[in-house]
């Protein structure tokens, strides 16, 4: 009962009552579930989603050398012109920085030079970490509607919001292109459902649940809204019986202690859920009580 077709880097597959489009982008398997049996529509939406995610990846990936983010990170202290989309994204990050009192910081990526969470026991020396601290601090970044200026040596990493933003952006395009059709946008577990299905039934989505013994499928029921997961229990260091999570405190340069291994949050938009999950991780032992006080549905894995 399934037809499969491959085209332009994505595939679409007919399920019993919907279509499923798949491709790979932003380092994750990406999936679109389209509550329609119109094959043309499925093609249209999946190719749209594919183009949009590739566009965002191309623009904001820190692994590419010919994009805007690379320009910003290698401007040697000079001003770089930015477009409206970049400004909005950075403004969002700015809000998160203020909301978290500096704990969510796009410039904290440089700490990766000291910390490699490969399961080994290579905890960096205090000197190595302290040398990097002056290069962190979103407040040192000058942002206006048209320009951004980073101090020399500083770098931005949009990894914490890029994928969630892409999910929301694709979901928005699907809403515009196919009003009235429920679409699930699922990029590696960061999910947005554009609207409830016609007959109000749940979408059943398998997401990778993170446990110590690796990936086990978890079946999730969702009607509409956004969902995101932060944390990755496979990325850690272990030294003298102490486990170092990959969630780093930009203020100290060291991992947050007693952080949950992963946090999944439900909110009306994916990026909102993603940020709440990240802010919860930064709370360490208080992650659960933080999320409770925010009145959101969540799961914490410790």
């Amino acid at each position, binding site marked *: 009962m399934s037809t499969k077709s491959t085209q332009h880097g994505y595939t679409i597959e007919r399920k019993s009552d919907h279509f499923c489009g798949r491709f790979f982008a932003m380092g994750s398997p990406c999936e679109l579930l389209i509550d329609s049996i119109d094959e043309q529509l499925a093609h249209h939406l999946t190719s749209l989603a594919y183009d949009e995610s590739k566009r965002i990846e191309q623009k904001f990936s820190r692994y590419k050398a010919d994009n805007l983010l690379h320009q910003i990170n290698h401007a040697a202290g000079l001003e770089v012109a930015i477009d409206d989309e970049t400004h*909005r994204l950075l*403004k*969002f990050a700015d*809000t998160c920085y203020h*909301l978290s009192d500096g704990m969510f910081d796009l410039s904290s990526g440089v700490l990766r030079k000291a910390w490699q969470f490969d399961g080994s026991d290579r905890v960096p020396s205090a000197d190595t970490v302290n040398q990097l601290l002056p290069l962190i601090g979103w407040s040192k970044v000058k942002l206006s509607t048209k320009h951004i200026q980073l101090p020399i040596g500083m770098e931005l990493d949009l990894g914490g919001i890029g994928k969630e933003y892409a999910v929301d952006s694709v979901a*928005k395009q699907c809403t515009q292109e196919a009003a009235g059709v429920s679409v699930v946008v699922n990029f590696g577990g960061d999910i947005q459902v554009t609207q409830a299905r016609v007959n109000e039934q749940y979408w059943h989505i398998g997401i990778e649940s993170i446990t110590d013994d690796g990936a086990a499928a978890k079946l999730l029921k969702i009607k509409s809204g956004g969902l995101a997961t932060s944390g990755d229990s496979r990325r850690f260091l272990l030294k003298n019986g102490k486990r170092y999570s990959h969630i780093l405190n930009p203020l100290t340069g060291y991992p947050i202690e007693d952080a949950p291994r992963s946090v999944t949050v439900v*909110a009306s938009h994916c990026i909102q859920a993603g940020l709440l999950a990240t802010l919860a991780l*930064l709370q360490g032992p208080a992650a659960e009580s*933080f999320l409770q006080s925010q009145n*959101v549905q969540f799961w914490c894995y410790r």
Partner: protein
Amino acid sequence: MQLMNKPINISSALAAATCALLGAPNANAADTDELWKFDTALMYYGEVDRVTAVEAIIGATKDFGDEHIFSGKVTIDGLTGASATGAVAQPVAQTFTRPSGDGNYVTGAGETPLDDTFHDTRVQLTAQWTQPIAENMRASGGVNFSNEYDYMSFAVNGSVAYDLNQKNTTLSLGLSYAFDTIKPEGGIPLAFSSVAIKPYSDDSENEQENENEYEDDFNRTRVDDSDNKNTIDLMLGLTQVINRRMIMQFNYGLSLVDGYTTDPFKILSVVNEQGLTQDLLYENRPDTRTRNSFYWQTKYALDFGVADISYRFATDDWKIDSHTIDSRLRINLSDTSYLQPHFRYYQQGAAEFYRPFLMEGDNVPEFASADYRLGEMTAYTVGLKYGMELDNGDELAFRLEYYQQTPKNAGFNEPGALQDVDLYPSLKAVIAQVSYRF
């Protein structure tokens, strides 16, 4: 951790930030042009035994992107009924000639004289354009045109607003100039000339003679076909966000009027010691008026709705001081419906030239008007509005209000017969309105 000190706000703040990032759910990222938005309303205003008005408004707004906003409005209203002439009630029936000079009407004993020829249709058009002119600065300009049978008004306005303190504070400066022309049927009456009484036409013998005499009399009371007035308004405003729930506004307004401010339809009774009318004179007001107003408004976001309260103090060189308190409380009944009680209180002192009547034998003052609207009075309005959002996002609202004016004696002695009649009758009106926004 510090985050814990700001509990629930974070998720709502993130929601707001997400909206800013992704834009409104239905807005198309590709074109920032938004659709036209329309505000329409139909209002009925009915006074007991006096004026009835029906007014329709269609307002349209469009955002052309980057805060370049056009708004326009068409207002049409129709007015019929009777309004107080300024003449006093008498223990006997009185005969008056209509202001146009065309025909008579009789006011019964003890009744307040009302001119029953109030009948007019007005069309008003406004257009306003607002756009940013610099970082944190907006400018706005507009025109306003209003036309009715005997009155025409044309106005232009311009203002600038400056945001500072992270847009928590907005300073504004506005100027407006209006030019009004009045062309009453029958012409502009001569100040303090006696109102000519049209002879009864059943006086057949001398009909033509009387008619000619009346026309001469009437024409002697007329100076011109039309007159006009200029109004310049200056307004300084300060809007301040107080905290997450409260916003305040302060305005200072200066208004300079120069020209014909008299109401050509209003008259004064000249009474004798017994309080009996001996003559009727056309009123006369100063040809300038300088007004100052101070306005303060506060809106407060409650968990269940919005509280809105304002106070206005106004004072002018006609010596009219007024105080107005206006308050609305929006009570959300659900996510899509609300009830909104409204209460307004108004109090004004009398103009220094206000005279409910003139005494026979006294010198005629330089200015005098018996228009009760320039006398001392209090007024209040109570109302209730119910609004609901429809499934398609449009908004429908109903409003019902009661308005009562209670004019008061500002310290005038009432000779003889005037003590037995009501010189300061109160006015009661009902306002009903349906509005639809889409």
